[in-house]
């Protein structure tokens, strides 16, 4: 049975249902915000680590022209190698019921004996048998295929062959197909041969014996493998060494979750402000009761324990409501993020420690928040407590308000009231101002993201791009497209994969070189230092500033040895262009042709004279048809406006996730203001009674409360404006770690500032509605008897 003092605690909570509800709601919001992110993070961390480790990812991938069992045996015998296996990876086209897409076909002699990059079977059959294809999970939705569909596979101009989709499997080592716009399809070697692929394997995957080795050590082992392969007379086109034990997007997801978690935690801390207000309100209303309890024998410690117990019970109730909700939202968010990363979290449970941490923080935060008002309230002497008359005139009012003659008396009283409880006002201001700063920061981030996309697309002076299935003579394809109606200009571009070499051995991962003609008019990046290609005769490279930032070997004036299509050549960096956040490398088509020996172009860019998406799409169809008629096989085409929209939407989605955290802050801020104003009404019950006794009407009382709330709201708005600048920088940095670096605006967004003003004023009106209604219901007699 509960003792009388604890019964009092529970009944007091029940007596102040509205304020209790506000405080519990605020704690719930904080726990849901921080807890959901924690749950998602714990699920993703476990799933990505365990699934990624279980897939036994390759330590290095070496691409060559052919691999046989003898070569694999020699590689396995090299020091430091645990095992090696081969596969055939070839780029192709796939025609699905949804259309034609670029495909990456992956074949292996024996999928069942797979030891590196293990594929996890999903629905349907595994491994793929002859005439059947298994589609990788992350490509299924993008490709628009389902088990049982028939798809047509074709490499270049080779023979097309139909395959039936017999299964879906997951390869967590692949960058998600929907993100890469590639359909990954596992097929049998016989099917590859059927559509004209060269026989044998073309890729070596190796796993090092010591899994604790770092990337540098693995790169050294990969160099040995490469040397061995080349000693057998084979050509090595690239060597990739990923960061060991880490999924390619793991860093981005960690950053996103850490950032969101930080904001969730901030919301949780700010919700503590409401607990401070609630407990302070309760103590204010019960000063005499505290005095009486002390007079009948209660010690300050016993009374403090009662109110801290009350705060603890608020936390426990909030935890009981919010931890299950946080788990639901956390799982949903984890599933969404896992979907992006191509992982499956459905088999994993949120770890117990995550719940325990939420319970501990949720239950103890209100206690910590309540500590200061409780200790202060319980120190009051019995004498002072029994003489308590409610709020005093403590707290100075700014001179401007004291001496003001432009306000009516009730408004003046509201303004003065707002400054009477300085500490509480500061807490409420802080809550609202931080909410505003996050809101404005999120808007700034949105603007910065759009600015970054502008920067990305600014150099591209064309409207559509066509990619050829296989290289074609540059001049002849441009000659086909340029005279077409609606086409203003067209250029043929080449491209290649390259890797930086030192002493002839590729060190870095491969990257793409974009190669427009030397005199291009359709690519005009802003040159920061140096110059654009001066002639087609030299091996000149122009790199974006991001490339230089990432690797000083590409600084202006430096020469670098690059391996392109297995051939090594020296290039000079003649210019650094503003590429925004993207690492981009340009060479002239002619220079690239000299190095690779291929004069073919793979891309046609077209500037149009037509306006509107419908007209542009019609032109795309005509160009594709014309090229097909002339024997040029177009594998894909895209409108730049569409490409821009896809990239922008993708980036804004992540910015939106960060911006969503401002909603949490706004709700917590609104609840904080509501609790502050209800507290103000409670404390001034007697004062309101006096005002009524001397003739104050309903609307006067209502106006006073609303004006007081507005004063706090507008002050918070003013504070939020400068505070939004560091918040914008913090959000921009977080976004930079997650997606790409964006140029953060150093001035708050004007319309956004006005919009936040509207939000904060509305918030104030809504938050003050209930306290104002309560104030209007106070009668003179009840107020003076209080």
């Amino acid at each position, binding site marked *: 049975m509960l003792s009388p003092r604890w019964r009092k605690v529970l009944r007091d909570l029940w007596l102040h249902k509205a304020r209790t509800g506000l405080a519990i709601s605020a704690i719930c919001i904080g726990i849901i915000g921080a807890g959901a992110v924690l749950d998602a993070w714990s699920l993703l961390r476990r799933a990505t680590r365990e699934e990624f480790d279980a897939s036994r990812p390759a330590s290095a991938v070496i691409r060559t022209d052919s691999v046989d069992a003898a070569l694999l045996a020699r590689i396995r015998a090299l020091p430091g190698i645990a095992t090696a296996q081969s596969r055939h990876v070839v780029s192709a086209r796939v025609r699905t019921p949804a259309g034609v897409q670029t495909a990456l076909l992956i074949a292996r002699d024996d999928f069942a004996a797979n030891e590196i990059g293990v594929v996890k079977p999903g629905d349907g059959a595994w491994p793929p048998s002859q005439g059947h294809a298994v589609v990788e999970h992350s490509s299924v939705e993008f490709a628009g295929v389902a088990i049982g569909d028939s798809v047509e596979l074709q490499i270049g101009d080779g023979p097309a062959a139909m395959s039936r989709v017999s299964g879906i499997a997951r390869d967590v080592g692949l960058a998600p197909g929907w993100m890469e716009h590639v359909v990954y399809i596992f097929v049998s070697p016989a099917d590859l041969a059927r559509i004209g692929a060269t026989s044998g394997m073309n890729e070596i995957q190796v796993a090092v014996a010591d899994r604790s080795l770092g990337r540098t050590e693995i790169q050294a082992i990969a160099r040995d493998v490469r040397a061995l392969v080349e000693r057998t007379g084979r050509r090595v086109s690239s060597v990739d060494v990923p960061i060991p034990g880490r999924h390619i997007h793991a860093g981005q997801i960690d950053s996103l979750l850490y950032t969101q978690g930080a904001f969730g935690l901030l919301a949780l801390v700010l919700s503590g402000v409401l607990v401070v207000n609630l407990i302070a309100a309760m103590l204010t209303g019960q000063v005499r009761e505290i005095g009486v309890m002390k007079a009948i*024998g209660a010690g300050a410690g016993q009374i403090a324990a009662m109110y801290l117990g009350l705060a603890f019970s608020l936390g426990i109730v909030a935890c009981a409501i919010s931890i299950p909700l946080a788990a639901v939202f956390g799982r949903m968010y984890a599933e969404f993020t896992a979907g992006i990363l191509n992982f499956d979290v459905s088999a994993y449970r949120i770890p117990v420690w995550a719940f325990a941490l939420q319970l501990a923080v949720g239950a103890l935060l209100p206690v910590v928040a309540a500590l200061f008002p409780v200790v202060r309230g319980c120190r009051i002497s019995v004498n002072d407590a029994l003489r308590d008359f409610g709020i005093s005139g403590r707290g100075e009012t700014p001179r401007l308000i004291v001496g003001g003659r432009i306000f009516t008396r009730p408004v003046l009283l509201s303004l003065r009231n707002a400054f009477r409880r300085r500490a509480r006002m500061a807490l409420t201001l802080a809550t609202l101002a931080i909410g505003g700063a996050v809101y404005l920061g999120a808007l700034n981030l949105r603007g910065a993201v759009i600015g970054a996309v502008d920067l990305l697309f600014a150099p591209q002076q064309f409207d559509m791009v066509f990619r050829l299935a296989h290289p074609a003579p540059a001049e002849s394809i441009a000659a086909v497209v340029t005279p077409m109606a609606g086409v203003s200009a067209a250029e043929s571009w080449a491209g290649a994969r390259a890797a930086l070499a030192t002493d002839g051995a590729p060190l870095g991962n491969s990257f793409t070189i974009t190669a427009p003609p030397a005199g291009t008019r359709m690519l005009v990046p802003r040159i920061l230092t140096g110059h654009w290609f001066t002639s087609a005769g030299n091996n000149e490279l122009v790199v974006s500033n991001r490339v230089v930032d990432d690797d000083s070997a590409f600084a202006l004036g430096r020469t670098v040895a690059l391996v392109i299509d297995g051939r090594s050549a020296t290039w000079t960096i003649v210019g650094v262009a503003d590429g925004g956040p993207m690492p981009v490398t340009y060479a002239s088509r002619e220079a690239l042709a000299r190095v690779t020996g291929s004069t073919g172009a793979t891309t046609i860019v077209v500037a149009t004279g037509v306006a509107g998406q419908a007209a542009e799409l019609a032109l795309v169809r005509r160009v594709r048809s014309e090229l097909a008629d002339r024997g040029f096989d177009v594998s894909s085409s895209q409108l730049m406006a569409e490409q821009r929209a896809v990239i922008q939407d993708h980036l804004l989605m992540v910015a939106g996730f960060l911006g969503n955290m401002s909603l949490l802050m706004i709700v917590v801020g609104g609840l904080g203001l509501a609790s502050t104003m209800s507290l103000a009404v409670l404390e001034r019950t007697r004062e309101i009674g006096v005002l009524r006794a001397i003739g104050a009407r309903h609307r006067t009382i209502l106006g006073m409360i609303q004006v007081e709330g507005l004063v706090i709201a507008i002050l918070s708005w003013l504070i939020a404006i400068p505070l939004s600048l560091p918040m914008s920088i913090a959000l921009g940095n977080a976004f930079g770690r997650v997606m790409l670096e964006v140029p953060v605006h150093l001035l708050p967004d004007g319309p956004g500032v006005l919009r936040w003003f509207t939000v904060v004023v509305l918030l104030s009106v809504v938050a003050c509605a209930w306290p104002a209604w309560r104030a209007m219901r106070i009668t003179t007699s009840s107020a003076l008897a209080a």
Partner: protein
Amino acid sequence: MTKPLIVLRGVSREFPTAAGTFTALADVDLTIDRGEFVVVVGQSGSGKSTLLALLAGIDRPTRGEVIVDDTAVHALSERQVSAWRGGAVGIVFQFFQLLPTLTACENVMLPMDFTGTWPVRERRERALALMGRLGVADQADKLPSTLSGGQQQRVAVARAMANAPSVLLADEPTGNLDSRNAESMLDLLAGLVQDGQTVVMATHDHGAQRFATRTIALADGRIVAPAALVHA
């Protein structure tokens, strides 16, 4: 000769105010024996409530000694005085001051809860017994707001008696009661005194003096009627 229960020696209590020092009690010497019903009378501001506050350890003298049941109350720390007060003194207030969210019985049990002077199992039983003695046992499970003023004050007295204090201090206990309930309350306190309880009561009500074993008159913080006269 038995030792007095309460001894005040040279007790003064001064308050600093904007207009200068206000003396609530000036050089008061007083002894009260066990089983006395002492009524302290005087005008508002004469020092009655200050005297009771000093006896309860709620306030501290500026000068002098306050000894209650051999305890030098003026020398106790804040922590010691609250522990001492819970067991040694019972206080009855003018406005009853029952906690509104606790039932009458729970209000009476509360001092036992704070001081732990009675085993948990016996507390309700003892509270009901006290309430029965004061004629409000049938109101035990009601909230204070549903009780009459007289009933609330009886519950307040039961609460003050909960820990069997050495002295019961009552500050204007009839000030908020009608004449019938006031008479009844005084009768009740006199009955407690007859059972051996020491009561010190501050009041404006001169009619209360007929229940008292001694009356002390205060004016401007000084005892103006010698205690010895009443004793005699």
